[in-house]
């Protein structure tokens, strides 16, 4: 059967990609997506650990991760919609800062 660390490796890679997506994508929804991937990676690691130590608590934990993920997405998206209604865009930069960035000629940020 697969060694425990391999599954951890997969989880770590997944987490890395989720984090990368969160930090670089200039779009709130994609950031939310990144967070979903990170949570999912966490769940995977939990399942692998519960198998490794042969205890079901790990899997119970995954259940809670699921609930948290669900609530987080719903509230997150509601906020994004409200923000969208207010500012007309899903850019994580608040409008004030955008002008600032423009003034300071901050290039690609």
């Amino acid at each position, binding site marked *: 059967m697969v060694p425990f660390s391999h599954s951890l490796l997969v989880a770590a890679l997944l987490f890395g990609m989720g984090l*990368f997506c969160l930090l670089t994508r*200039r779009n709130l929804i994609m950031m939310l997506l990144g967070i979903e991937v990170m949570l999912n990676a966490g769940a995977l690691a939990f399942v692998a650990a519960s*198998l490794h130590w042969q205890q079901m608590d790990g*899997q119970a934990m995954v259940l809670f991760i699921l609930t948290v993920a669900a609530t987080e997405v719903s509230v997150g998206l509601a906020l994004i919609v409200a923000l969208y209604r207010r500012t007309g865009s899903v850019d994580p930069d608040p409008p004030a800062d955008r002008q600032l960035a423009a003034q300071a000629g901050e290039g690609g940020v």
Partner: protein
Amino acid sequence: MTVYSLLFYLLSLLTLAATAMAVTRRHMVHAVLYLVLSFFGTALLFYLLGAPLLAALEVIIYAGAIMVLFLFIIMMIRVEKEDDRFFPFLQWWPALLISGGFLAGLLALSREDLVRQPGMTVAQALPQVFGIHLFRDHWLAIEIASLLLLIALVGVLHLSRRRRADAIEEAP
């Protein structure tokens, strides 16, 4: 190489590729769909790692509910394409650095088991056994989780209530 481990590597490869594609898509709809694929992969992995109930839940909640919600929102807001600032350099390299740091850290943590650990014995947490365990040991956590969901529900309703007073901020 048992079929089981082969399946495992194949599936994890699939999941990783799907997530990589999801993260880097310019079109959000494509990203969401790739993510759905990645969640299917993870569900199968769960099943492989002895968590059949979770695999099902994964598919139902993650792939089903959450991703559908995403699609619904994307359709509603009609934001198709990321604008020009796709992967801004100034954010790109620090993010890589930080996720790389995480990766290195996690690898270092998991590495010491690599040597002596032949591989996990196969076991299956039957949903019935899991259910009993869940409601016997973690009854309080379940109640809190349900409360959490309720709060989320109330929160979302409050947020998206269209107030007559500030009706003006319709999308331009």
